């Protein structure tokens, strides 16, 4: 049972007033308006941030486009510097690879025995360097092989075997820049030439020269 069936209320619901100090009919619109204002402020902040970010982005893009030219120039300069550095390095390699034989050859005359006549002193040609490999536009700055080996061929006449042996012994010390200990006697035979009534002997000795290195 409910006493509502006995309740004949002449007061309309719209006329009922709230006893609460906080009035819903005031607070609801105020809350709604404040919420709307809050949303508008939030959206305004977001919009401002968006505009600022867009402006910042445009500035960065403009700066990037301006600096891209400088950047390519820097890249080009850096590549050029690297290339020049490589060239310098190769030159350093060449400088390190310079074989100075003038002084040993000058001293060679001093150690040649009297009974030996050098008729030929030659270097075998160095291996051919391929500085422009097929398919490459620009030539290489340096040789493809860093180590180059040459032979020193020494040919002459002598009266007997002993002076040649003496010469070879002399070359074993103090001529490291000219020859190594590796040698090969290519020929040693009777020659047609005569001196002092005796038949002369011709000989040919091949010395391996020190390696020529294109390196620091």
């Amino acid at each position, binding site marked *: 049972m409910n006493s509502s069936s006995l309740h*004949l209320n002449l007061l*309309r619901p*719209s*006329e009922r*007033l709230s006893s609460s100090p906080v009035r819903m009919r005031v607070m609801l619109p105020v809350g709604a308006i404040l919420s709307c204002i809050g949303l508008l402020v939030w959206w305004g902040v977001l919009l401002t941030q968006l505009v600022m970010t867009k402006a910042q982005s445009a500035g960065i893009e403009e700066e990037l486009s301006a600096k891209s030219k400088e950047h390519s120039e820097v890249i080009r300069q850096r590549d050029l510097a690297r290339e020049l550095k490589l060239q310098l390095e190769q030159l350093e390699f060449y400088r390190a690879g310079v074989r100075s034989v003038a002084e040993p050859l000058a001293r060679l005359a001093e150690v040649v025995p009297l009974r030996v006549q050098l008729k030929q002193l030659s270097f075998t040609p160095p291996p051919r360097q391929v500085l422009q490999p097929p398919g490459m536009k620009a030539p290489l700055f340096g040789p493809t092989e860093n180590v180059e080996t040459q032979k020193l061929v020494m040919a002459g006449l002598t009266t007997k075997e002993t002076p040649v042996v003496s010469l070879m012994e002399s070359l074993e010390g103090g001529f490291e820049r000219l020859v190594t200990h590796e040698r090969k006697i290519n020929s040693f035979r009777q020659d047609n030439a005569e001196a002092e009534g005796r038949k002369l002997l011709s000989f040919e000795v091949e010395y391996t020269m020190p390696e020529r290195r294109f390196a620091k």
Partner: protein
Amino acid sequence: MWLNFAKPASADILCLLSFVLGTNCATQFQVKLQLTSSKSIDIKFPCGGGRKSAADITGIEMFAPDCEGCRAVRIVNKKKAWHLVAADVVKDPDGELPARWEDTPRQPSWELPRPFQAPHAALAVNSPFGTFSQSTADAILQDMSAGLDFASASASPKSDSGGKRFGVRKAQASPPGAPKHAAKPDAPARRPSLPAGGESVSENGRRFVSRPMPEPGFHLYASLPEFQTLWVSRLLPEGRRPTASSIQVAESALMASVFLQPEFRSADGDALAIFVRRDAVFFAGYRKGEPVLWLRCPSSGGSAAMKSAIVKTLGVGSDLVDSVLNESLIDPRPALEPFVRPILAQLELSLAYLASKHSLKFDHALLMGLDAGAAHWSTYAEEALRLRLVAPDPFGGLVVGKGVESDRASEYLVALGAAIAGAEASQ
């Protein structure tokens, strides 16, 4: 405030949602979820109040002719029991109940003493223009069409500005009590429609509310002049406790006063009650807690007439009437019997009506509002109708708080009934 965020365009094809946020007063907050153009769901939020029952309410009887001040009670529902925490006579609002539209601009503000500052207040108004009756729909409609039957010509506002007063726009040059079409004789008469049960409507300067009764075709309805309703509704200001949640006619509140009585509850809401007021006697019948009879006993005065008859017949002073009725020193029957017998004759008719129409048979009835002499009434009723009259404690069914005077409890029936009805209490 109504905010409509979307409107359904083609409800047959699409199930569109629209939200309507509504708060049409301080105590209602609802969201209307419109599924289609024809289907919608109303969601009422708890903060909105709506029609939920009040657990703390003050009932006030206003402008009782036999009381200097207003009788007020405050009832609180705690632990599934109703507690009477205060009952007293409080000071009248500053000003009298307006009898004319012209008086309504003088709107006083009323503040109740602290013990009665509940969140809600149910106001029961004693008004000479008030109506509370059991009637047929046609009779109610006729009453609604008739307007106020009082000297409205003199009561009509002098100014014919047609402006708003208390939110009601009045017809120009039309007295408030007169029908609306009276202002325009050429206009066709508009026949009012019976309001839905419990819905308050204004018609021809009067505020009406009705409820259908179990007997088909019958309604219980109450009415007050519009200006009195508006004046009373604004007595208790907003933002301070209490505020008016219910305005009832005093007789309507009286009818609800038995709702918490243990006898009423034990009979499962089937009861017959006799309400004795100062100027009238009323019969009320209930079936399963629903009102099935409300009748003002014709050709009979109330307790004032009874006491006057005793004074005149027995020659005792008016201050001794209660002693004569309660004590056996002087036999009051010579004066009492001529007064009670016609009432019992009418009661017999009501008993026959309840038995024939509602299959209700009673061996006892509740006698409410009688200060003294209930035993004599019961004797006469048993002799004439074999009906025992029980005069229960008006505060029965309530846990009476400390400090609440219950000596003159029967005087608080209207205030108590207003609070009970306003609380829409359950049993």
